[in-house]
């Protein structure tokens, strides 16, 4: 089974115009196991997005390396390490699907053309890619919108297309960069449930970034809390609220459980402590 591992990774951004260097991530050691739903939560500037960009291959670490299964995925020269690495992937790859907050759909393509885009790039025949795209559009509830222009869809429906598009490519893991951040509260809750259903259905590894404490607790099987200056992981929690939801199908009930509320207050105090210490928002 292929797990994603981050080995002693630091990221240092060069100072702008000879200014001070910024240590965006410091000594990150971290593993995502197959089937896990990992959520990263933290104040602005804690390096969540940098961590996701590393996993996606959009940037390379200053120190350390990343592996997915038997492949080194950081775009750096092959490291000599205990693990026997069979393969090397430079930069982004189709085994790591990304869902963005917005602006990532292609407005010149309609809903199903957007969804099958990855398969088209790989040269999959039209009939087959249509069929696969249609099955994932059905999974996200867009079976009646195949021919709609994406720029006419609501924000929530656009994110559904983004999720279906990433899944159609059959990646090993999904990287979700605040995918629900720009949505209204009601749509957001609907899509939280949808994502959990997708997770259960597909058993993909998920790495999900959010600003919302409630969302993080609800979605995560493992929650990591990050802290800024330098960006690092300060707390980790194993959670099962997502499993509880998948059992009882009642999000309000799960989110008003005493354990949930207790956990929420604990996490909030951690984050507020960070903000007070940093003195910035």
């Amino acid at each position, binding site marked *: 089974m292929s797990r994603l591992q981050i080995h002693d990774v630091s990221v240092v951004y060069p100072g702008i115009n000879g200014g001070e260097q910024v240590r965006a991530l410091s000594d990150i050691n971290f593993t995502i196991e197959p089937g896990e739903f990992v959520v990263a939560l933290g104040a602005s500037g804690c390096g969540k997005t940098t961590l996701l960009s590393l996993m*996606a*291959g*959009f940037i390379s670490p200053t120190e350390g390396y990343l592996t997915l299964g038997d492949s080194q995925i950081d775009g750096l020269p092959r490291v000599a390490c205990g693990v026997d690495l069979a393969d090397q992937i430079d*930069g*982004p*790859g*189709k085994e*790591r*699907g*990304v869902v*963005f907050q*917005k*602006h*990532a*759909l*292609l*407005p*010149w393509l309609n809903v199903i053309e957007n969804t099958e*885009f*990855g398969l088209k*790039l*790989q040269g999959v025949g039209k009939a087959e890619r249509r069929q696969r795209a249609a099955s994932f559009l059905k999974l996200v509830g867009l079976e009646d919108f195949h021919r709609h*222009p994406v*720029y*006419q869809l609501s924000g929530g429906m656009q994110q559904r297309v983004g999720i279906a*598009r*990433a899944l159609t*490519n059959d990646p090993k893991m999904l*990287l979700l960069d605040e995918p629900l951040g720009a949505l209204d509260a009601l749509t957001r809750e609907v899509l939280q449930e949808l994502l959990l259903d997708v997770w259960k259905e597909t058993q993909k590894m998920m790495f999900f970034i959010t600003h919302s404490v409630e969302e993080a607790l609800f979605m995560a099987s493992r929650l990591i809390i990050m802290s800024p200056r330098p960006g690092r992981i300060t707390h980790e929690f194993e959670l099962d609220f997502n499993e509880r939801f998948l059992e009882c199908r009642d999000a309000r009930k799960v989110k008003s459980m005493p354990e949930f509320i207790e956990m929420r207050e604990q996490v909030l105090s951690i984050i507020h402590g960070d903000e007070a210490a940093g003195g910035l928002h």
Partner: protein
Amino acid sequence: MSATKALDAKAAISPAGSPQQSSPTLLQRLKKIFSAGPVMPGESYGAPGRGKSAAISLVTASALLLLWFVTTTAGWIDPMFLPSPVAVLARFWEVLTEGFANATLLEHTGWSMMRVFGAFALALVTAVPIGILMGVNRVARGLFDPIIEFYRPLPPLAYLPLVIIWLGIGEVSKVVLIYMSIFAPMALSARAGVRSVAIEQIHAAYSMGASRWQVIRHIILKSALPEILTGMRIGIGFGWTTLVAAEMVAAQAGLGFMVLNAAEFLVTDVVIMGIVVIGIIAYLFDMLMRYAERKLVPWKGK
């Protein structure tokens, strides 16, 4: 407070509504035109330039034509300075059927269109690829940027003599002059189009396994299309502007040549007629381009 405001709004929408109200003064009317004003449902308050203007444009055009007609038929202006619309129309028919300066209007128009659209087609197949290359490749950008930025602001008349010295007085130098004026805006628009691509779209494509070439072809080219089309509209405008300069030297036919030739002999009605014909052709082409924009890039601005 809010009740009075609502009443005010009602009064402003239908000023003639209440009979006891005296009609507004000129100053009040002017104020209303330039104020943010109350809005009807479906409009947004404070949006710049709100409201329709087509009717006003129609009135402006009709008034100008009427003024032209009245002043010239009344004999207040010497026809050498401004001939009457009737005289221009008559001349239009005459040049169409009999010709002027050894060529009919269709021949003049044909030659000019061939030069302008020939240069335009040449620019399309060279400037757009070079502009895109400048956008995606730093070597290309470093190579072409100083050349284009240096000659772009020069008036074509300034380098016309050089073009003639190098390429002679034949058809080639005319097309090249027009081509150069179209090339710069078209290349720069294509380059700006490349720059306008959302980085999320590029990242998404790479994360779906795209190669660099696939990203250029499927993402960057498509994203740049709206700006390329805008560049084509700007470019063809520069082309028509340069036409008269190109036809100044050793032309036998062409709308620019016709106008210049007529000016030499003070045949003012041909001058005006030529200007109107160039204006109409340029306007029709622009309409065509706008139609193409609506068909090709319906997502523009959304």
